[in-house]
């Protein structure tokens, strides 16, 4: 295993120390592994809390700051945080206007955030609403299963609901924005290589040199199918078409198109992929209103990418353009 780490067991706390040193505008609670805006709680503002397993950086800690999250809980690598962390984060961002939990739809995340919400409501009158993201079209949405995974849309929810909260809107409205984004956004991902979990020490799956996995998540889990490696052009079709088949993206004010790198893929390739995604969308008559290209939601050192499309409207575009000031997403401030 080749990684810039010390003891695999210490990866998360050590990376948090680096994050704290690099970003004085954040406050890191090292005991609870919670990253907060230094000015949290912001009085009168809805607090946004997210979190999940580590290994997806910059998500979530890199999105803490003005206009996005108020706090992020860092679990062990690929392991959702424990309830105590979420409780500490929720308390730390409670400015009197309630707290929104942004939770990716994984059994562990959902349960740990639920238990935290139960603990918070047992001990205080802080109002908490949880919005669960489940945008991955690689997974069948069914009542009998765990449902779809929460992936790329989570980044967009954090940006857009974060902007709504920054405008001073009440908890219910901020939660509605989050739900709307989740309802109108879909994602699909692929991997050229597996990632290696530090504590496991070897790649999660073996992938021959001439094959790739389509329909992967962000935890190194294998995808829905394994196919021969294909040109970027065809990969863009394999990712975009299932999204368009799942949700009509035409009409409205165009989409926010998000091409995301999985951690081991260089920006050169992501821009090339973006050009191919643009081509597929053009053919399908889908306009692009805004875009985001980069590695924002990763899976350790996995090579690969995901595409997220969000059907936008006036309000969402306004929230997208609103200033944001976090370590990894910043504009207008």
């Amino acid at each position, binding site marked *: 295993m080749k990684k810039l780490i010390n003891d695999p067991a210490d990866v998360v706390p050590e990376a948090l120390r680096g994050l704290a040193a690099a970003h004085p505008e954040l406050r890191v609670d090292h005991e609870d592994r919670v990253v907060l805006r230094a000015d949290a709680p912001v009085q009168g503002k809805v607090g946004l809390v997210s979190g999940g397993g580590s290994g997806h950086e910059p998500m979530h800690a890199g999105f803490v700051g003005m206009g996005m999250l108020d706090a992020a809980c860092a679990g*062990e690598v690929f*392991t*959702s945080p424990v309830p105590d962390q979420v409780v500490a984060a929720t308390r730390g961002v409670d400015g009197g206007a309630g707290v929104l939990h942004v939770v990716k739809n994984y059994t*562990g995340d959902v349960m740990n955030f639920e238990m935290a919400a139960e603990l918070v409501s047992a001990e205080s009158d802080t109002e908490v609403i949880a919005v669960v993201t489940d945008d991955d079209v690689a*997974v069948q949405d069914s009542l009998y299963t765990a449902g779809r995974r929460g992936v790329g849309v989570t980044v967009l929810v954090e940006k857009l609901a974060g902007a709504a909260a920054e405008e001073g809107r009440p908890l219910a409205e901020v939660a509605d924005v989050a739900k709307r984004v989740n309802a109108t956004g879909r994602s699909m991902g692929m991997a050229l290589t597996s990632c290696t*979990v530090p504590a496991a020490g070897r790649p999660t799956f073996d992938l021959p040199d001439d094959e790739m996995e389509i329909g992967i998540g962000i935890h*190194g*889990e294998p995808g829905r199918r394994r196919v021969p490696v294909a040109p970027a052009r065809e990969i863009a079709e394999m990712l975009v078409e299932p999204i368009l088949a799942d949700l009509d993206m035409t009409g409205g004010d165009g989409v926010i198109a998000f091409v995301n790198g999985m951690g081991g893929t260089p920006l050169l390739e992501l821009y090339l992929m973006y050009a191919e995604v643009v081509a597929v969308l053009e053919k399908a008559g889908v306009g692009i209103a805004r875009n985001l290209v980069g590695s924002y939601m990763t899976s350790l050192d996995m090579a690969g990418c995901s595409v997220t499309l969000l059907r936008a409207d006036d309000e969402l575009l306004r929230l997208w353009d609103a200033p944001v000031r976090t370590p990894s997403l910043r504009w207008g401030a």
Partner: protein
Amino acid sequence: MTVVDAAALTAWVREFARLVHEQRDTLTQLDSAIGDADHGANLDRGMTAAVAALEATPPDDPAAALKTVATTLIKTVGGASGPLYGTFFLRAAGALDVGTDPTHHGRALAAALRAGYDGVIARGKAERGDKTMLDALGPACDAFDEALAAGKALDEALGAAAEAAAQGRDATEPLIARKGRASYLGERSAGHLDPGAASAALLVEAAATALAGRG
């Protein structure tokens, strides 16, 4: 002789921790095939902490022992298995009523395990056959109950439970997962053992080993 006392349950927890540590890589490998390669690390971290917590504050009674394990797992594991095993031990602790008659200890333990099992169902909303830890825990509870009802001694009944858990674990192999992370794989989840069922089988095996000779 007290059959199910704090020392006995502490011994069970220790033995489970030992097995998990020993099979950490195996559990992680099972989780690599259909999950995210952390189940071994998760449980090992949690059970190491649980043993440390029991050592730091030795429990006064058997329910306290289980409760310490529950809160420690909830605080340290995370993921799906943290809340699920945490809930298992929490509900078991709440249901454990050993009373004063040692001959009832077996049934008291069986009731506690059943309560824990029901707690996992309530928390995780899965059913048997979904390819989860329930597929080992459920058969174990059934076999334990049946053996006791048939008048078997605790030893033998736990042996039967461990046997049933192992069979339940093996039976997860052909299943298509419907809950947890493995469900994302759809049909590709078939052909692999469920990691949580494998660790649950260790939990029951540990009980059989640690409580052996106690009744």
